[in-house]
């Protein structure tokens, strides 16, 4: 099925200027509008072009290693009280669903005749994925990363440099992901002729949210068919973690039209919503404009962006993709916070029951599933089937998790 991962489907689409209900749109300097229009045109043309779809499909299959498996996690299921099917995006090349997006955008970059890509990264996963695609496609690559993050994630900085990328530590503002995104925007405004801004999630100005969603929606297309093949039925629920929200939209999209399938997005609740130290933009934020789009934002009474907090660097972002804001508004998907502690308990449970070390991001989806299972079982009067997007692997998180569980040997 990945051979035609961009085949049109009847899922929800934004209006022609990128609005999902009252969310989305373009809140950008005029200087970027021409580039966004060019990108929008290139994306639409590519979507309609069978040769582009074939090339993308071949890359996903031969290079990224998709379709990823849908694995029935029996020992985990027994602990949880639901039939849990894991969509193994952690097995993709570079270790997460993100490779799908970067390959799609790198192909588009080539089609637009641009020679340079820039990206923002928090923990470094999207930076590594972008650097990977840039190496493969022979593109110059500059990655902006908050200085706080370059220090926390020194190994990923090294990985990006090995792949030939330039990593620029950002020293403005809070020196984290949102500031890296600001800096990437500034670079883009200044160098837009030769440069594509390869945004790492389904956020930002139109067409990024819909375009990124389309590049990763193979996750759900595959999972839906795999679930039917395995169980003969659609699942009762599909769950995913939500930071910017690309992995969640990727798996939700194919199921949005299946009204009986419940969709759950689990946000990073950090220390708990009541503490104010979290990254739950939908459940703990309010409507605002950030990084080019109208969505839910963590902000103060004057509209200044608040710092987010999460044990998971990949979810540590004070906004969310506008399509999620809209799915929340319409009630089609439900969003709930998961605290650091709940996520880490689920992280440990998957390690011990299945021998799979998940990304801490994905552990939020697992923890949400653990809490959801008994409620759904009670409601349905039977064991529910739940498809969980295991969006990434935990290699990058070993240090954080080791620290959390206190299992690292003391410094020599």
């Amino acid at each position: 099925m990945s051979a035609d991962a961009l085949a049109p489907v009847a899922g929800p689409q934004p209006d022609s200027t990128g609005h999902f209900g009252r969310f989305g749109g373009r809140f950008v300097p005029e200087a970027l509008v021409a580039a966004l229009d060019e990108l929008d045109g290139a994306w639409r043309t590519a979507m309609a072009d069978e040769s582009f779809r074939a090339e993308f499909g071949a890359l996903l299959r031969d290079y990224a290693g998709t379709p990823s498996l849908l694995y029935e996690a029996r020992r985990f299921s027994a602990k949880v009280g639901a039939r849990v099917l894991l969509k193994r995006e952690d097995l993709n090349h570079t270790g997460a669903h993100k490779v799908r997006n970067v390959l799609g955008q790198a192909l588009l970059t080539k089609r637009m005749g641009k020679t340079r890509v820039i990206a923002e990264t928090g923990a470094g996963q999207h930076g590594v994925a972008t650097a990977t695609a840039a190496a493969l496609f022979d593109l110059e690559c500059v990655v902006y990363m908050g200085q706080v993050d370059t220090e926390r994630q020194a190994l990923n900085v090294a990985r990006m440099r090995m792949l030939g990328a330039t990593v620029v530590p950002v020293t403005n503002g809070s020196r984290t992901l949102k500031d890296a995104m600001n800096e990437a925007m500034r670079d883009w405004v200044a160098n837009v002729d030769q440069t594509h801004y390869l945004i790492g999630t389904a956020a930002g100005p139109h067409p990024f949210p819909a375009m990124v969603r389309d590049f990763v929606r193979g996750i759900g297309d595959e999972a839906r068919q795999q679930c039917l093949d395995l169980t003969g039925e659609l699942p009762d629920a599909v769950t995913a973690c939500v930071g910017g929200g690309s992995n969640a939209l990727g798996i939700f999209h194919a199921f949005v039209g299946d009204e009986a399938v419940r969709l759950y997005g689990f946000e990073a609740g950090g220390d708990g919503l009541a503490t104010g130290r979290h990254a739950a933009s939908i459940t703990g934020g309010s409507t605002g404009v950030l990084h080019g789009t109208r969505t839910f934002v963590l902000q103060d009474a004057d509209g200044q962006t608040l710092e987010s907090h999460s044990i998971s660097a990949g979810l540590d972002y004070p906004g969310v993709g506008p399509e999620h804001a809209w799915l929340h508004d319409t009630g089609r998907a439900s969003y709930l916070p998961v605290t650091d502690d709940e996520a880490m308990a689920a992280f440990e449970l998957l390690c011990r029951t299945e021998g799979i070390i998940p990304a801490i991001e994905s552990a939020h989806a697992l923890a949400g599933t653990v809490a959801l299972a008994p409620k759904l079982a009670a409601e349905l009067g039977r064991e529910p089937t739940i498809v969980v997007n295991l969006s990434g692997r935990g290699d990058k998180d070993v240090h954080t998790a080791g620290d959390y569980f206190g299992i690292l040997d003391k410094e020599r």
Partner: protein
Amino acid sequence: MSRIGVAFDKARADGRALLVGCMPAGFPTVEGSIAAMTAMVEAGVDVIEVEIPYSDPVMDGPVIQRASDIALAGGVRTADTMRIIEAVAATGAPVVTMTYWNPVERYGVDVFARDLASAGGTGLITPDLIPDEADEWLAASDAHGLDRTFLVSPSSTDARLSMTVQHCRGFVYATAVMGVTGARARTSDAAPTLVSRARAVTDLPIGVGLGVGTGAQAGTVAGYADGVIVGSALVRCVLDAPTEADGLAALRTLSAELAEGVRNPTR
């Protein structure tokens, strides 16, 4: 005609360009920013552009970012900005406000417009709000008699240029370079072309900003534009000064130099 329009006309009649000087509200403090803007007016700046500090200013370079961070760390609120505008407007100079969109949306677009008008502000420059998304602002600015300055860029297509200036009132802001705010060694080659493209589709005065920092550069820009907009170079006077008094002195010196520049257009 708006107060800004009158000021532009007067400058044009005098054979010179209008000098617009920008300073973030609340930088370095609320009172300090009022003192700085007042000094700028006294030294020859015609119009004060008060920038509302914002946590994520994507159109600004490092100097204005740092000043905005200082203002926010000092606790400046949007309501303080209104007070600053009122104080600066009392000098008699027209005061235009530059703001990213989220603080306005959070304040409430119509309430913001009402309070801005009652503080004596003439209108808004909106770096990340394009007319395509501006329905609420178009209505509020009409209701409260405020000017609307949207940006045009060297990358704007003819169709967008024309659409954008149609939605402007007061003046048009032409961004001289593809990039963010900040003084540059050379003024832009793209700016004269952009200004003449804009003139073909509007009679509104056109201000040019981004990268102007010296009297000579102001003179060059005054040669083809109606307004010369200076931000980072002025902000730097305050940012780099060891004391507030030194900052004000540097600000007066540069303001006077720029005022001289706009009176000696290089044609």
